[in-house]
């Protein structure tokens, strides 16, 4: 095992799957230059035939990925930022997600749409979104939200092998962690969450870098005598409800933290499923710690005010415990 950072884990996942299956190709803007690191070095390893730089035409190249997948390729589309998904929305949500179904199962569309979500910091409204709820509300897509280097490597490799379109949202502020040596296969199935820390008072459901925030909150609150169990479902679609309900059976209290906006966000869905299936387990109202329902502002202190973080998790947890 060795420690690698999140970006490198993404990079390794793609490289390993490209070696494993020569129908895997990479498509996107500046992917040859590997500008933000996700695809760095792939051009040298796999050549321009498999690493395709595109015009700034997100609808065009996402649509081309669909056609290529129909023809048997397995494109990994690097969208760079979650905020750029909107430009290709019809192709992702109304085409890619639906075509297999609409054509009665005639064709598979094994495509990965990969992006970094969440504010890179000081990037303001148009570059900072984490719009995964929009894709979770669009049946036909799988939605993956990995919280560590280990998870992103294993889940991204799984995504590339999956025969359906998969949205992978990464957040590079997630935890750096150790992964097996290259060559050892690391694949994490979808729909299997993980308890990242055991606790007894409150179940904290978290995704992406908020798992890290949840874990630090848990450490801090332990000193105040509040014990958090941090549960990371790892994929939003499919969602591992069992692990959440099992945790709630212990704690009876639910706090969901998620980096998307609040209304109709990921936290709303988790709360709703618990209210359907785990209502009897709850001994208190639930708490959601999400982005507030405003766009992301540029100035750091305002940005921090809007985003969910460890302090807000702690505050919400204290309120939940009535202290």
């Amino acid at each position, binding site marked *: 095992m060795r420690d690698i950072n999140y970006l490198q884990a993404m990079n390794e996942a793609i490289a390993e799957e490209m070696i494993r299956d020569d129908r895997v190709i990479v498509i996107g803007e500046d992917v040859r230059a590997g500008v933000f690191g996700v695809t760095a070095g792939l051009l040298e390893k796999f050549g321009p035939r498999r690493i395709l730089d595109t*015009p700034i035409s997100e609808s065009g190249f996402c649509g081309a990925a669909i056609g290529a997948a129909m023809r048997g390729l397995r494109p990994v589309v690097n969208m760079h930022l979650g905020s750029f998904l909107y430009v290709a929305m019809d192709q992702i949500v109304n085409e890619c997600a639906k075509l297999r179904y609409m054509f009665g199962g005639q064709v598979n569309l094994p495509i990965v749409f990969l992006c970094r979500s969440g504010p890179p910091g000081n990037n303001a409204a148009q570059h900072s979104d984490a719009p995964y709820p929009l894709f979770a509300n669009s049946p036909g897509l799988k939605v993956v939200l990995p919280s560590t280097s280990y998870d992103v490597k294993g889940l991204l490799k799984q995504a590339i092998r999956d025969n359906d379109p998969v949205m992978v949202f990464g957040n590079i502020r997630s935890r750096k962690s150790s992964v097996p040596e290259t060559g050892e296969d690391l694949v994490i199935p979808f729909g299997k969450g993980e308890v990242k820390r055991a606790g007894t008072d409150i179940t904290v459901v978290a995704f992406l870098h908020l798992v890290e925030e949840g874990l630090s909150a848990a450490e801090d609150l332990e000193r105040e005598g509040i014990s958090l169990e941090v549960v990371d479902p790892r994929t939003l679609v499919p969602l591992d409800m069992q692990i959440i309900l099992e945790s709630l059976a212990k704690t009876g209290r639910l706090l969901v933290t998620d980096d998307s906006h609040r209304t109709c966000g990921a936290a709303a869905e988790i709360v709703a499923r618990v209210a359907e299936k785990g209502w009897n387990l709850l001994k208190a109202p639930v708490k959601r710690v999400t982005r507030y329902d405003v766009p992301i502002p540029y100035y750091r202190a305002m940005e921090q005010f809007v985003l969910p973080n460890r302090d807000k998790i702690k505050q919400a947890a204290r309120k939940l415990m009535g202290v």
Partner: protein
Amino acid sequence: MPLDKDRLLFAYRRILEIRYLEASLSDLLKRGEIPDLYPCSGQEAVAVGVCLALRPDDQITSMYRCLGHVIAKGAEPWRVAAEFFGRRDGYCKGKGGAKHVCSFADGIYGATSIVAAGIPHAAGVALGNQYLNTGQVVACFFGDGAANQGTFHEGLNLASVWKLPVVFVCENNLYALATPIEETTAVKDIADRAASYNMPGVIVDGMDVEAVYDAVTEAVSRARAGGGPSLLECKTYRFGGHFAAEFALKIHYREDSEMDQWRKRDPILLLGAKLEKEFGFTEEAAQALRNEVQQKTEEAIARARSSPAPLPEEALQDLYADSYANLPEQEIF
């Protein structure tokens, strides 16, 4: 190279197959047996001319006005009709329906109903052909209205930059729904836009199956040789409404006189006349062929109608290739 008699007769038969199948479906629609239909009559020579110029293993992408395209590419009429009925034997098992008939086994790589959305798909199929070095070419059908969508621009630019084996076929029937093209389109001829993508742009008489065949043959051989994409604009006209139920909307956007002019250039008339003039194809022979096609069409409809309807709960199938226990996770009432 002109088409020989057999190929022209084949084209004639195909056009009739499309025309008659549409007529039958249109009747069924009026009787409430099928719910939806986008007529293509008047435009059949484009579909048939294009597919004549393709190899059987070449591909097309289609759109909501798909009936002509899919028959021309070799889909079985009864299974096409079954899809209009929404039956299990429909190519899409009743899930796609009128606007989305396609058959991947026949090289029909999708029919989509968002205007111009299929254009980048065609580029992508061509990218796959190129990557796998199969020598296959894709023909991509879309309308004049589609040429104002961003995906047209992006798809054609991408195809040109990557020199993809694809032929873009714009069926310019002068209207996007009820709006005449000149009110929405800055150029008179869509073919002129090819220059923006550094590819040949050719205006074609879309009522003349041979003219379409010739233009596509050239574009296909260019594409197959690695010369990249072309844009063909086929001038044509739709004899029916934008959709079959249009008459119920009581909107008026085309003059009868315009329709009459175009009806004189009905591809069936033009091709019939050519066959008669060049190969002595008689009215009796034509009538026999018409009867035969009509009969086969009726058989296809009957067979389609007897295909079983899907069970309601089959609605939950076919979404994912790789399923999970908890996906979709929902309470079924």
